[in-house]
């Protein structure tokens, strides 16, 4: 039973109606034993009434030595709602692929029940397990309990944000590299960059095992690693026949929907002109028993994706068409590339400018030259965009010719 008076929330109560689960019902349950949640409901009701938010930034709160992981929030209506005067968010680095044991979930919830509102967001759009609402005093105790059990905070501010990945090889036959291993490895490699913000702005890594891109890395990360293959789609013609026999309209639903028209079907067998396949995954998704990615697998690295904050949204574009994501050499090729990109960003990045915007500003050609990547046709965003790549050799040749004339 509550030892505090429960807030009246007629407007919020409207949201309990209807067929879907309601956050209001959950919060009301919590409000009975957490005054912080009770006052939160009260403040939210006020916001609904006034059509106005009541949260303010109060500078950074954090734990000793870390510059990220906690987002400070204060109420500007604390007089009326004292229990949610502080309402800081704690980002906890989720396990790769969001796999938890029930014991791990209990551990997290128990820590949070002791030190915070008890409300979580599983998971935030960054990927982290998000603990919603606590006070400044509780931050160090939460951090101590989390780290004692081998958990850690995630990123925030101008740092490497908590990397995330699809559950790849753990559950999905399409995975072209081990996304969970790569994500974990990169997270551990860049602990310093994750906890001690040193960049011009945030940096997000996301890892998808195939071009279906289940973590939407192309839209939601600065550095997107998407599994791919460079040999041929594997075809099981017997399974093609089974699909046909069971009534699938192969011509209409597969062949004619291939975006590059590189497939054909003679009524018995499918053939694919693999040179013209752009690995869109459509045919494989429709006929997973008959078609599978090739066996010479790796990943495409794309750069510059971001949601609109200061400038508009950007989709990431290809930086490295194919890279072997090699566990045995600890992803060295990938990490070497990262060092070069970050050196460039340190040097040329402007405060609050994402890498995609930085590349647009300095020009792709200059960026590629600085990070020692040769210009490739794959760098052209789409037909009729000029990548503004100038080949210096060309100018040198002219110079040589002039020199000879002289």
């Amino acid at each position, binding site marked *: 039973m509550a030892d505090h008076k429960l807030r009246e929330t007629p407007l919020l109560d409207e949201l309990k109606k209807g067929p879907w689960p309601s956050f209001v019902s959950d919060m009301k349950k919590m409000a009975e034993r957490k005054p912080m949640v009770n006052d939160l409901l009260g403040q939210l009701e006020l916001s609904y009434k006034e059509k106005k938010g009541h949260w303010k930034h109060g500078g950074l709160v954090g734990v000793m030595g870390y*510059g*990220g992981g906690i987002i400070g929030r204060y109420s500007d209506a604390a007089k009326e709602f004292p229990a949610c005067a502080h309402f800081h968010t704690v980002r906890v680095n989720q396990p790769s692929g969001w796999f938890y044991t029930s014991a791990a979930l209990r551990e997290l919830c128990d820590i949070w029940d002791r030190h915070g509102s008890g409300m979580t967001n599983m998971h935030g759009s960054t990927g982290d397990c998000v603990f919603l609402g606590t006070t400044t005093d509780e931050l160090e105790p939460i951090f101590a309990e989390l780290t004692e059990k081998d958990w850690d905070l995630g990123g925030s501010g101008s740092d490497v944000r908590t990397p995330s990945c699809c559950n790849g090889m753990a559950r999905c036959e399409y995975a072209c590299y081990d996304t969970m291993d790569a994500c974990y490895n990169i997270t551990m490699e860049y602990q310093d960059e994750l906890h001690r*913000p040193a960049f*011009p702005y945030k940096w997000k890594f996301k890892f998808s095992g195939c071009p279906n891109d289940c973590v939407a890395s192309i839209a939601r990360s600065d550095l997107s690693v998407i599994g791919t293959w460079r040999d041929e789609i594997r075809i099981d013609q017997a399974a093609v026949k089974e699909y046909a026999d069971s009534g699938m309209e192969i011509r209409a639903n597969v062949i004619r929907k291939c975006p590059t028209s590189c497939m054909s079907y003679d009524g018995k067998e499918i053939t694919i002109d693999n040179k013209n396949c752009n690995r869109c995954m459509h045919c494989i998704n429709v006929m997973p028993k008959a078609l599978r990615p090739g066996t010479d697998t790796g990943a495409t690295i794309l750069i510059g994706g971001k949601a609109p904050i200061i400038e508009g949204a950007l989709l990431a574009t290809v930086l490295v068409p194919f890279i072997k994501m090699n566990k045995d050499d600890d992803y060295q090729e990938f990490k070497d590339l990262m060092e070069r990109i970050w050196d460039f960003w340190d040097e040329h990045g402007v405060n*609050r400018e994402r890498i995609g915007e930085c590349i647009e500003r300095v020009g792709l050609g200059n960026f590629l030259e600085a990070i020692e990547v040769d210009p490739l046709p794959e760098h052209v965003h789409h037909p009729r965009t000029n990548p503004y790549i100038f080949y210096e050799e060309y100018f040198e040749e002219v110079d040589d010719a002039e020199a000879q004339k002289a």
Partner: protein
Amino acid sequence: MSELTTDQIADEMFNLVKEYAGKKRFKASDLTKEIIAKHGDSVNKKDCKAALRVLMDSGRCVYGYAGGSFISLPGEEGAAKQ
């Protein structure tokens, strides 16, 4: 020129933050650039990264956030409260 120790770099960084407190907000990379500009080839980015870690773990400086992350003295506007 003799090599600087990590602690010495951290101290120099701290002095910069202290000297410019309230006038300039240093990002971690700004401090690194200042140190490298002053000492040239005898320090590199890795040394500076290690020094930043020492500096922040010592509690003499804290991270702040105002649009982007920066490094400041505890208790300054926008900085973490100690």
